[in-house]
């Protein structure tokens, strides 16, 4: 039976007065938010013990929609902000949700060093291959050959493979999903949030408005169909073997899941040793 409704069960985690959100029709960001809310619902997380930190960009708007301590920081600085929160309050679960440009261009150094130190936070990096908010400029994940406002004849810069960057920098948990894999993404978010140490999930999401329509995928649905036909799940694969190239299959899955002392663990150890 079809029933007309006024509210969604997930509204309890949202600042529902801000819905509808600002994202374009067919944008993948709503699915990332949705998967995240389903994950915290299943984990039964106390919203008073959860902090969400975003940087700037369309993805950066996610924090503002979640009804907990959520911070919209300056461009590129979500991770140092989250590091401070995490070290000051070890009880708190701290999750960074931000875009490819925010986390890997202007904020790239923060990412690699937080992963190297094994700061106990979860980073969800939404890769839509461009700077959506500012009109679709080329960014560090734009695939070779892709057309953007600043590469109208095709991109000639080699992109980052974000999962490879995360692994090489020391992350203890690394996974990649597209937004079509919403259920697997939700499960991965749960796993990552329960993981001790720096966990990273790359989410491939459509940005039809500023990226897709310049790259022969003018609607979100076009891109979702591409994910259906071209995603291959390869758990445990070396992330260096999972580059993203135009027209090729997208390799997704849980690539890395290892144990390593976190920064906080090591620091507590040190304190004990020095105080003796």
């Amino acid at each position, binding site marked *: 039976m079809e*029933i007309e409704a006024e509210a969604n069960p997930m509204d309890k985690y949202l600042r529902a007065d801000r819905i*509808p959100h600002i994202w374009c029709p067919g944008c993948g960001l709503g*699915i990332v938010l949705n998967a995240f809310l389903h994950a915290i619902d299943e984990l039964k997380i106390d919203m008073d013990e959860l902090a969400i930190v975003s940087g700037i960009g369309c993805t950066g708007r996610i924090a503002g929609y979640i009804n907990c301590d959520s911070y919209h920081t300056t461009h590129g600085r979500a991770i140092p902000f989250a590091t401070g929160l995490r070290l000051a309050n070890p009880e708190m679960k701290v999750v960074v949700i931000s875009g490819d440009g925010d986390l890997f261009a202007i904020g790239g150094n923060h990412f690699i060093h937080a992963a190297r130190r094994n700061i106990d936070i979860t980073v969800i990096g939404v890769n839509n291959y461009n700077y959506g908010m500012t009109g679709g400029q080329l960014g560090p994940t734009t695939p070779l050959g892709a057309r953007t406002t600043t590469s109208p004849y095709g991109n000639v810069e080699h992109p980052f493979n974000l999962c490879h960057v995360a692994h090489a920098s020391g992350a203890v948990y690394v996974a990649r999903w597209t937004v*079509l894999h919403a259920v697997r993404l*939700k499960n991965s978010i749960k796993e990552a949030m329960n993981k001790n140490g720096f966990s990273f999930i790359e989410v491939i999401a459509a940005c039809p408005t500023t990226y897709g329509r310049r790259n022969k995928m003018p609607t979100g649905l076009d891109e979702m169909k591409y994910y259906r036909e071209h995603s291959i799940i390869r758990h445990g694969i070396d992330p260096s073997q999972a580059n993203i190239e135009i027209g090729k299959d997208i390799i997704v899955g849980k690539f890395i899941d290892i144990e390593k002392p976190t920064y906080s663990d090591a620091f507590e150890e040190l304190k004990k040793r020095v105080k003796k």
Partner: protein
Amino acid sequence: MNYWVEKKEKQIHANVFIIKDRCKECGFCIEFCPQGVLKVSEEFNSKGYHPPKLVETETKKCIGCGFCSMICPDFAIFVEKEEENEKN
């Protein structure tokens, strides 16, 4: 022969809730519903989009998997399972 017990199948069925004014007509729920029970409607919502509608038949029914609600970017659709009485 009373030891032949006929298997009684429990039919899982679910209600589909649609918040029409939130829909931006991305088409994801319609395309990816594994049962194919959603369809674009003729009606306009307050933003000028056509929200989805449910079109169940005798053989194609919502089974309450909830995938539409997982991939809806706009929190505009969800399902609730309802366990129907046993068949027969």
